[in-house]
């Protein structure tokens, strides 16, 4: 992945955008973290958050005019969180001890004229950066207009304590002195004039006799090089939004602090010879792109303090802070078990995946993250900025395949299954018996054929009866497994075969019974060349089949591959209405439908997570479900959910189709092979091919062993081959007490071990397991 591509992904995830309160603060004090610390009674933690960004917290924490509250999202559900009052509650408590980190001392000296909030902020910021700072004030006491605040709000001793703390850090205070600007420029490398009181501060008057005022509101530069000035009349002017900095003509304390901070940044840059203007857009109040859903937020009024002076007790403060919404987006993480499972959010995942590709030596920690995504697109559908985890993971998978870094076990089983479905055992492309060409071709897909082959036959018969112009049949796999595995090479080969066969049949309109097949192949077919089965059925007056399930209300599970095919989703709804099947819409349905856990080969790369995804999807409604994807049906059925395929209503193959267990991997392959053989025999009068000798091995397998084999993805044919090999070579172990045999066989990159015993009617299988490591046999 190119770094620019990473940036593109990162930019789309807005989880790390500042909360409104933080963005609104001229100093970007992390009010959200502060309030969250107060909410849990962590006052030391709250203090630390303030100290990190807020200059002179003892002062500003008491008198801040809190523009943050104007943009607090809680206002839309009650009152804004009283962040200002919480800050006061915090800074009136004892401060935890801490060490101030001061950068190595520099030579250039800085003069600050005026010891109000702006001047002290400049001094505080610059002394931390290692600059020797001297503060001048014509008065004998430092504090400037801070001393005019009512003492109950800002006690003079608090101002004195902050001044003393600055002195302790090395700031020199020369009080009662009023040097001129010329004198200061002669002695200091840079000067900041706080402004506002020119008559008392000769430095506030320039050599031309006019007041020293900034000509640039952002840099606070004046017409004299190295001289910067504040302007109390418009503190914080020139900011991006300019709001919240002064109210009712009163000077905004936090606006003054911003001026002080801007002056410090300018002076530091000036002394280093750096640009005064570059990359300063983020100073001051900002807009934010953070999305916060208020969908399930109940309205709550603010907590009124008992104290007549309006001060919160610790308990009241905690209660007030607890009203904070802890603003964050996480829209995608809320609805996706996969995103939740890995403990973070897409922006960080993008970085992890980008770094993963760069690792040469060492563990590729993001492999599992990359290979576990369902590629279902739900995150994109719910994201305000359309972040696509599917694009991110699929690009990463393709890159891993190209670099030979794809873990072999991740998708191998699915790709072997794909190879089976593309082999002569299943592939078939025929026109309707007795016709040269056909107007339609039914493409049932490998999963419906594997899950319920009888329904494939029934649908094909129905289509031949209803449609004119001939209905051909194409048995094949659409190529979803190689697509999801990042194997474009394999997909390309399969696609070429399918397109060639379709052309041979007379370029018929394809009728899909599987939404995934349609989703995978549609981009390679022209418009108007394919339809979904329901679109044919809803127009032909189809009815429910005899002996089918009762028409209870059922939850409708839209397969994730129909997300962008609203017309298919609508067609299925009309078909169900036509069949008198009442449905309930799940919370996640239509364009924001959820995956069953099979998408993206999640069930292969991370079976435990896929099971959890299916369980969550199943739990969305206590009702039985109905769906129109064989794989969705089987994935949810495997977790015990009662679920029907729409075709179960029309062509019921058993008494209780909703309770039908998911056919295992072996059974799916057998179903596909038998379907082809039967269709060939019955419709085209062709016999099947000869069996391999190992296929004659008769097995007896108890149900619990079958389940174990399926979980371990060991096929009946693997077992047949292992036993055949053992019995014909005598290469086997036998147990001295149970008399069981142990066969092993390595037909490909996997070794299978099978424990079995001989019975009259065949071989009883007791256990089987596999590993991928190869063994060098040494005699």
């Amino acid at each position, binding site marked *: 992945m190119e770094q620019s591509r990473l940036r593109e992904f990162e930019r789309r995830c807005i989880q790390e955008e500042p909360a409104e309160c933080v963005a609104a603060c001229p100093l970007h004090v992390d009010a959200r973290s502060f309030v969250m610390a107060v909410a849990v009674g962590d006052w030391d933690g709250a203090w630390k958050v303030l100290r990190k960004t807020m200059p002179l917290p003892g002062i500003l924490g008491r008198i801040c005019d809190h523009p943050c509250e104007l943009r607090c999202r809680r206002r839309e559900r009650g009152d804004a969180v009283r962040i200002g009052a919480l800050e006061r509650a915090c800074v009136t408590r004892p401060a935890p001890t801490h060490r101030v980190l001061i950068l190595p001392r520099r030579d250039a000296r800085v003069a600050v004229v005026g010891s109000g909030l702006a001047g002290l902020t400049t001094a505080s910021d610059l002394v931390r950066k290692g600059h020797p700072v001297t503060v001048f004030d014509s008065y004998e006491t430092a504090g400037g207009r801070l001393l005019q605040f009512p003492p109950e709000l800002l006690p003079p001793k608090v101002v004195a304590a902050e001044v003393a703390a600055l002195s302790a850090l090395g700031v020199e205070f020369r009080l009662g002195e009023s040097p001129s600007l010329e004198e200061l420029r002669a002695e200091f490398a840079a000067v900041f004039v706080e402004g506002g009181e020119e008559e008392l501060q000769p430095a506030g008057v320039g050599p031309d006799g006019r007041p020293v005022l900034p000509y640039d509101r952002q840099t606070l530069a004046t017409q004299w090089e190295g001289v910067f000035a504040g302007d109390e009349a418009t503190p914080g002017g020139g900011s991006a939004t300019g709001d919240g900095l002064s109210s009712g003509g009163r000077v905004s304390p936090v606006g003054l602090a911003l001026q002080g901070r801007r002056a410090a940044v300018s002076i530091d840059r000036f002394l280093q010879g750096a640009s005064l203007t570059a990359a300063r857009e983020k100073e001051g109040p900002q807009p934010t792109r953070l999305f916060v859903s208020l969908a399930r937020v109940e309205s709550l009024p603010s907590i009124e303090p008992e104290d007549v002076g309006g001060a919160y007790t610790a308990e009241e403060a905690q209660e007030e802070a607890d009203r904070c919404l802890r603003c964050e987006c996480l829209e995608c993480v809320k609805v996706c078990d996969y995103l939740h499972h890995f403990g973070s959010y897409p922006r960080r995942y993008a970085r992890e995946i980008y770094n993963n590709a760069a690792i040469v030596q*060492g*563990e*590729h*920690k993001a*492999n*599992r993250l990359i290979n576990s995504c369902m590629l279902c697109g739900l995150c994109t559908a719910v994201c305000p900025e359309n972040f696509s985890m599917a694009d991110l993971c699929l690009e990463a998978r393709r890159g891993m395949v190209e670099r030979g870094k794809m*873990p*072999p*076990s*991740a998708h191998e089983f699915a790709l072997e299954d794909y190879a089976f479905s593309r082999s002569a055992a299943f592939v078939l492309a025929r026109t309707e018996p007795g016709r040269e060409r056909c107007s339609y071709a039914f493409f049932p897909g490998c999963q419906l054929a594997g899950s319920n082959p009888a329904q494939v036959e029934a649908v094909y018969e129905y289509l031949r009866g209803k449609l004119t112009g001939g209905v051909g049949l194409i048995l094949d796999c659409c190529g979803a497994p190689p697509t999801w595995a990042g194997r474009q090479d394999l997909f390309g080969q399969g696609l070429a075969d399918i397109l060639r066969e379709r052309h041979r049949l007379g370029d018929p309109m394809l009728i899909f019974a599987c939404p995934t097949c349609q989703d995978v192949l549609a981009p390679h077919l022209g418009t108007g060349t394919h339809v979904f089965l329901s679109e044919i059925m809803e127009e032909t007056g189809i009815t429910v089949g005899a002996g089918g399930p009762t028409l209870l209300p059922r939850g409708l599970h839209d397969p994730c591959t129909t997300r962008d095919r609203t017309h298919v989703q609508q067609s299925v709804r009309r078909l169900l209405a036509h069949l008198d099947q009442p449905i309930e819409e799940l919370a996640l349905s239509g364009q924001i439908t959820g995956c069953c856990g099979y998408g993206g080969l999640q069930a292969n790369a991370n079976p435990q997570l896929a099971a959890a995804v299916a369980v969550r999807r199943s739990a969305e409604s206590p009702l039985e479900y109905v769906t129109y994807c064989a794989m969705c049906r089987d994935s949810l059925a495997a977790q015990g959910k009662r679920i029907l395929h729409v075709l179960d209503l029309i062509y019921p193959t058993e008494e209780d189709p909703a309770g039908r267990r998911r056919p295992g991997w072996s059974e799916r392959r057998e179903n596909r092979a038998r379907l082809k053989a039967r269709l060939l025999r019955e419709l085209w009068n062709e016999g099947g091919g000869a069996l391999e000798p190992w296929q004659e091995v008769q097995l007896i397998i108890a149900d619990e062993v079958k389940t174990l084999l399926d979980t*371990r993805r060991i096929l009946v044919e693997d077992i047949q081959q292992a036993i055949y090999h053992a019995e014909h070579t*005598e*290469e*086997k*172990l*036998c*147990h*001295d*007490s149970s008399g069981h*045999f*142990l066969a*092993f066989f390595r037909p490909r990159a996997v*070794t299978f*071990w099978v424990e079995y015993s001989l019975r009259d009617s065949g071989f009883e299988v007791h*256990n089987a*397991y*596999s*590993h*991928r*490591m*190869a*063994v*060098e*046999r*040494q*005699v």
Partner: protein
Amino acid sequence: MASIARLSEDDLRWMCCRCSRPLEVGPVELTYLGNSFTLELPRCPDCGLYLIPEELATGRMAEVEQILEDK
């Protein structure tokens, strides 16, 4: 990987059918994705037929396979 696999008593009750000899613990070389290890495992002293016990295959061996795949 440790050079001695944890074996159960039962693992040594398997016999090589062809040689009719009980298995004895001896060195067996395993390879995966270009990495090799030697492990002490039950093997036939005559023909070298070996046993990978289920617990090893589905436990530690699977873990090591995963680690090597993520390298």
